[in-house]
């Protein structure tokens, strides 16, 4: 089976761990070999976080190398730029158009780069931008940004929509299932 390497990049607290959890569940239910590698602990406190997901091929290493990612799922613009080298030139790059200032920018020690999406588009043809925060808010919770992003990603795979929905039902807490399904559909319809 063709293997797919997905990198999820964002800021600690944006829900990237749940994202990889859902991707893992999807992988298992489609009978695909999945490897996920996450980072927990200190860096989860508002730091730059990256999660690797490899699906399909029998691989030993759970880590994705530079220029290897088929999909770069970016929860924040600056983090998209920070990790862009890891994407293949023809990778699907999905960017949540949200800007979260890191502390050096907040305190005025550094400047947040301008026109990040344009810069990335100049080198990579397959860039999709998503106003995931607004979409999640419309569903009733800003915490659903991650599931909106999964919806956008799901549309770009050949895995059936129902498989994704199932994985969401299995992974999120029962009281949040409806909200997350709505968030997924918002992303999926983009």
């Amino acid at each position, binding site marked *: 089976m063709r293997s797919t390497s997905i990198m999820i990049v964002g*800021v600690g607290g944006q829900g990237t761990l749940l994202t990889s959890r859902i991707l893992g569940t999807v992988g298992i239910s489609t009978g695909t070999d999945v490897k996920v590698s996450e980072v927990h602990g200190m860096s989860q406190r*508002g730091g730059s976080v990256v999660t690797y997901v490899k699906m399909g091929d029998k691989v*030993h290493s759970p880590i994705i190398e530079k220029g290897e990612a088929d999909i770069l799922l970016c929860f924040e613009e600056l983090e998209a730029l920070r990790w862009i080298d890891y994407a293949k030139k023809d990778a699907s790059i999905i960017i949540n158009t949200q800007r979260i200032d890191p502390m050096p*920018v*907040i305190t*005025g020690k550094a400047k947040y780069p301008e026109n990040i999406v344009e810069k990335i588009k100049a080198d990579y043809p397959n860039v999709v931008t998503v106003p995931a925060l607004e979409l999640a808010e419309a569903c009733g919770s800003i915490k659903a940004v991650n599931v909106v992003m999964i919806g956008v990603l799901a549309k770009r795979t050949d895995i059936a929509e129902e498989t994704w929905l199932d994985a969401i039902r299995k992974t999120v807490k029962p009281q949040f299932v409806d909200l997350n399904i709505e968030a997924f559909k918002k992303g999926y319809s983009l």
Partner: protein
Amino acid sequence: MGNEAIALGAIKAGVRVVCGYPGTPSTEVLETVAKNNDGSIYVEWSVNEKTAMEVAAGAAYSGARTMVTMKQVGLNVASDPLMSLAYIGVKGGMVLVVADDPGPLSSQTEQDTRHFAKFSNLPVLDPSTPEEAYAMIQAAFALSEKVGLPVILRPTTRVCHACASIDVDDNREEHIPSGFEKDSRWVIFPRLSYKKHIEIEKLQTVLAETFSESPFNRVSGKGSLGIAGSGIAWAYAQDVIRDLDLDVKTFKVGTPYPFPEKLAESFLEGLEAVLVLEELDPVIEEALLEIAGKNGLKVTISGKKDGTTPYAGEYSYELVRKAIAEFTGRSDPEVPETTIPPLPARPPVLCAGCPHRASFYAVKKAMKGRKAVFTGDIGCYTLGNAKPLNMVDTCLCMGASVSVAQGIKRVEPDTRLFAFIGDSTFFHTGIPGVINAVYNQTDIVLVVLDNSTTAMTGHQPHPGTGRTMMGSVSEKIDIAGLLKSIGVKWVRKINPFDQKAAISAVKEASEVKGVSAIIFEAPCIALIKKPEAFSVDSDKCRACGLCIREIGCPSMFLIDDGKVQIEPSTCYACGLCGSICPFGAIGGMNHEN
């Protein structure tokens, strides 16, 4: 997740008692056992790793299969019972899951637990993947019971926090504990220790031979070049060997101690050169050098000791590929140069609304212009060292804030000493330090940052919360009452968001002779429902930037005219910014925009 695989493997192996202390990357092992507990397993977060090891030892003396979980530095705390337990031994299988953290990604040190295994003469298993961790934990229980010694399973971050699909066998082994039998073998005495030492040393040779037959150690391939490795480095090596289509002899080491000497001899036979790939210390490399030396083999062994591979930091596929390519004379594909301009760093920060920020700020304000040193400890609040707060002058290990402060005070009597410690860390190893200060009459201000949880590792309960991993509720241990009972005369509980009261309490505490204690009580934001965010009245904001400069809240940002705005999606309405704004421009729900 590798940690879940370890937990499920332990349940499969019939574990009865599980103890541990939270620590990245080990935490989810115990949590997963608790989540999948049918009621037949006793699970506890112990107050610290030493306690966990001793509770588990008692259970293992009584014939139960037991597991203890911790991170690598936790084993330092538990090393006292560990060393003696290696002499005393166990009856029920006892496995210590000690997670190492190359990088380090979330730790104080890059210490290598394989040394602890060697030091204490205990066998250690070193998995490369979650699948292997699942198999190894089960084998570890069987081995422990067979040889009557605790066995260490030492996964690393990339195994603990890697997820893979594994087939779980639901047929749980039944091991009924035989109960504690009174016997002099459980009482360590010098004469017994001498006798035991002889036995343990003999056992090492036996174990080394057993491990030469272990399925976790494999020699394959042929040729005059050999690659040996372990852990995640071995996983990378396998991918590289496949990608470069290499024909080499390989040696996968799953039991680094006691080293499988016979198998190693068969690996070294006929080789001209060996490359060793292992993260952290050169444990396998040294073992191979010793065997080559003992057998007078003419083989070059490279790794860390000749500078081929680094000691420090995490290994990557790229690093392993470069090393293997050079070793085998292949050309290594050039990594394309990055086109990314230098970007602003994104270091971890205290969350918006975190009560620690308010606590640090109150102490900072109160001590403005005074000579003061702020000793810190392990937890989220170590992040208080970052600018603009800049309130952590030292951080050493769990509980050290309290004692390091005393040492500084002894050398600098005219400096005010503040020791910051979280609630879970206070229970872990903070208390003896306070007793020491009271007993020796050292003037320090103890600042307990009580957010009602063990936040950094993912919100585990502790003695101050009263909740246990068995779902029961016990009496909460009252930090203020405890401090008073050990002789701290001046103790105040304050909500740090009441800055006025907090600042005045800090000033008062700093004048107290002997030990004074402030307990800043406010829950971690992860435990509360997010309230409506604060906002800035742009007519009142004078763009002075004081709030940005002073408190370093990640929810605040500057807009073009130099005025401040608040990101509503992350603001927890803690009100710290509002309380310091000189123009009353920041406020909550009913605040006019």
